[in-house]
């Protein structure tokens, strides 16, 4: 035992000094280029500074445009994996070095085994059947849907083989058939500040794609594919089971991953490629290195067409954009690159720098349920062979998934417990960025006069489930999948757009930037975000947060009635002429009604038929209020929130009322309705004759 420490110590000191020199150079280097990867591989492999004893977490900067690490690195994963394309299996060895920064001894470690979710009795499948799911209904179980992640051997360096110590735990629901979390007790606790190294051999059976992982035909997306240690958070291990609607949570660190795949495969992965070797058995081994990331994903397909000559000149240095497209979608590659680059630009401008040297965008196999997913420096888009330029769905997906590089990738919130802090805040960013790039009312659709904007669609997804769950809900505790989606994405985005109206757009932007810059590469909680907005705005916003974030209150203000009649109505009756007299003084009233339980101050704009206009303020506390006027004009219309700052009102139709009905909108939509139904029946008749 002692001999080994001595043998390791001197080479380690040498390596540390050498790698410091190399890393300083590497950090300033241009993005990696094909053919120049081998030296980088050596540099990555050599980096072992800041050692305590024989173990350490590297402080490499090969994959980031920074001379120093940007996160507090807790983990270092070294994985050597081989993919069997015929069996859809992965056999791999994993060396995980963990730095105990918890401040207390750790005597057990929980690990996620996410792929075990794809088994009929697992919590993930049960919830998907019960509560709904994004991709698969599981009406009928098929063997190809089966996935598994099995730890073949588990050794703790210095403590021996603990394979038999594995114990599946179910911290969330007690489902004994769920094997997505395994816990291992160590004979000797790891002291505060100490390191521990795990050597794990594991075997994956990849399922046909579910939850954005698995295979489809000859395509593979390797997501959540390796045993991943939980996060020590708020004084305890945080390692949730995999649920049908939850995503992930992990510590920052360094990833060095070797992937061996058939030589015909085109591959993409998180981090930067540092080495590529063709093996004698018609396989090749690619080595990837990632710094300051908390997950690692990869994809292969023999049919990818690659565009990797695009470079974004970021605030911290160049970012290489690597785009893997399906051949059938190759005509859209420029469109994908354009929105990716624009997203980079806007996120840097709005929130802060993108520090990584690469971003890989993958266009997954059609029908693979692998589209629209985010991993560090690696995202999947979603498109189809027919995609008119006015239909911005690819732009929407790419922008959204790129946004997760900020809200999840760098600001690494707990996606199990605070899904709104990544999906929701990201959806708000999506509204802002797509508004700026594609237009506020046309960011989703702009075809032949028909339009749809992102902010209205976010609101639309919320109003159908408005009172089911609060935003501040654990992702796996939502009523169902629809509520999770509508609240986490739609309500959060709408709540933050509305908040923008309360604190001002500029202030909100400053607050978002401050939040990003302060909490990047950390695991912030709800109050970190909310307090940042209060601090930057200088306002106490508890009244709003308590209702909008922590509560299920629904907002619905209504112009319930407008009315005008002559003050001297009894005199008017005597008049013989029916013409309006311009000298007639009217008593006009507007009644506003708070129909639901969310209270908020509102503006109301009242227009009169002489062209005059008045704006009133209502604190919105009472159930109803009335504004009355005596003037030589009748009220023509009243509109709550005329500047459209409130985006959480459940019913926008009743926010305004006109004295005279206007039949044009109903006639227009009815004409469309008539046209469509008549065309359908005519087509049926043609078929019949």
């Amino acid at each position, binding site marked *: 035992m002692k001999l080994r420490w001595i043998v390791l110590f001197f080479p380690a000191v040498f390596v540390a000094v050498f790698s410091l020199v190399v890393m300083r150079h590497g950090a300033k280097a241009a993005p990696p280029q094909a053919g120049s990867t081998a030296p980088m591989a050596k540099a990555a492999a050599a980096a072992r500074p800041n050692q305590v004893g024989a173990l350490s977490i590297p402080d490499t900067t090969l994959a980031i445009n920074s001379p120093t690490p940007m996160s507090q690195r807790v983990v270092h994963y070294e994985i050597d994996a081989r993919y069997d394309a015929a069996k859809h299996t992965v056999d791999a060895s994993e060396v995980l070095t963990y730095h105990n920064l918890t401040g207390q001894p750790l005597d057990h470690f929980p690990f996620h085994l996410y792929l075990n979710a794809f088994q009929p009795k697992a919590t993930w499948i049960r919830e998907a059947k019960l509560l709904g799911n994004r991709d698969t209904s599981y009406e009928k179980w098929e063997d190809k849907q089966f996935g598994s992640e099995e730890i073949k051997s588990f050794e703790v360096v210095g403590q021996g083989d603990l394979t038999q110590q594995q114990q599946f735990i179910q911290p969330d629901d007690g489902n004994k058939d769920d094997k997505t979390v395994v816990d291992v007790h160590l004979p000797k606790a790891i002291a505060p500040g100490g390191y521990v190294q795990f050597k794990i051999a594991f075997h994956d059976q990849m399922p046909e794609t579910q939850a954005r992982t698995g295979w489809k035909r000859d395509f593979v997306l390797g997501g959540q594919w390796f045993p991943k240690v939980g996060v020590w958070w708020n004084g305890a291990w945080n390692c949730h089971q995999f649920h049908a609607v939850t995503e992930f949570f992990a510590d920052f660190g360094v990833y060095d991953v070797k992937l061996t795949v058939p030589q015909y495969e085109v591959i993409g992965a998180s981090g930067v490629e540092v080495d590529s070797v063709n093996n004698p058995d018609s396989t090749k081994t690619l080595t990837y290195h990632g710094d300051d990331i908390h997950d690692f994903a990869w994809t292969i397909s023999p049919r990818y067409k690659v565009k990797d000559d695009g470079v974004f000149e970021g605030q911290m240095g160049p970012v290489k954009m690597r785009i893997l497209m399906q051949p059938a979608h190759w005509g859209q590659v420029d469109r994908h690159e354009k929105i990716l680059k624009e997203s980079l630009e806007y996120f840097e401008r709005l929130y802060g720098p993108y520090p990584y040297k690469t971003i890989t965008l993958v266009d997954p196999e059609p029908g693979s349920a692998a589209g629209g997913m985010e991993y560090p420096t690696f995202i999947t888009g979603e498109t189809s062979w027919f995609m008119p330029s006015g239909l911005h769905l690819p732009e929407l997906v790419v922008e959204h998934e790129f946004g997760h590089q900020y809200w999840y990738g760098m600001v690494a919130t707990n996606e199990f417990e605070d899904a709104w802090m990544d999906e929701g805040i990201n959806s708000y960013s999506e509204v802002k960025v797509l508004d700026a790039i594609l237009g506020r009312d046309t960011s989703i659709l702009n075809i032949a006069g*028909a*339009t749809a904007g992102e902010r209205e669609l976010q609101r639309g997804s919320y109003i159908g489930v408005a009172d089911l769950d609060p935003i501040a809900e654990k992702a796996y505790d939502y009523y169902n999948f629809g509520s999770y989606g509508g609240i986490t994405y739609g309500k959060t985005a709408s709540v933050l757009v509305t908040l923008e109206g309360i604190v001002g757009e500029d202030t909100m932007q400053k607050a978002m930037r401050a939040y990003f810059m302060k909490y990047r590469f950390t695991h912030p909680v709800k109050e970190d975000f909310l307090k940042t907005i209060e601090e930057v705005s200088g306002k106490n916003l508890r009244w709003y947060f308590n209702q909008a974030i922590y509560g299920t209150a629904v907002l619905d203000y209504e112009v319930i009635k407008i009315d005008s009649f002559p003050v001297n109505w009894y005199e008017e009756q005597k008049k013989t002429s029916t013409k309006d007299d311009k000298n007639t003084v009217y008593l006009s009233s507007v009644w506003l009604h708070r129909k639901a339980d969310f209270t908020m101050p509102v503006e109301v704009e009242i227009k009169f038929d002489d062209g005059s206009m008045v704006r009133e303020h209502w604190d919105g506390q009472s159930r109803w209020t009335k504004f009355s006027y005596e003037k030589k004009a009748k009220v023509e219309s009243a509109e709550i929130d005329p500047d459209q700052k409130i985006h959480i009102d459940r019913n926008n139709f009743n926010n305004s009322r006109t004295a005279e009905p206007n039949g044009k909108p109903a006639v227009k*939509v009815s004409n*469309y*309705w008539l046209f469509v*139904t*008549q065309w359908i029946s005519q087509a049926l008749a043609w078929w*019949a004759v």
Partner: protein
Amino acid sequence: MAENGSLLGSGAGMVARNKRYIFWFYVLNLLLGGFGTVAFFVQSGTLLDQSLYSNRLVHGFDLPVLFEMFARPEFGPSASSAMSAVFFSAVFFLLSALFLPGVFQGYGSNYRLPGEEFSRSGALQGYAGQHRLPGDEFFSSCGRNLWRFIRLLIVSDIIFLIVAGALF
């Protein structure tokens, strides 16, 4: 019908010969469509007529406003407003199948069904027909009608898209 002539030409000739049918069936279709749309018009009017928000459907065509209208409880379930349209489509389809000559007529000539005069298409022509259709003629007729239908559908789709584009 000329076997060697172009199908589109044959179709056009058929249209010319049956223009009265087409006209009256169009009128009937429009009438039934109108009935089917009344419920939709009334329901949408309750939401749209006195709201400034609905102006976004007049000036341009903001689809989220339309979706929100469908989602409102005051509008009622989409199914209820669609039902009348579906009903009129079914009626129109049955009328067309019953009174116009076509594939169903041939079907009826080979397979006797109870009350077939009322259940097969081309019943009127069937009454006037002098002979029963042999099986091979029936199937070749099916084939011709199938391709004619597909071509008509493509042409109608093009027209539909043009008109829809102009409307929206």
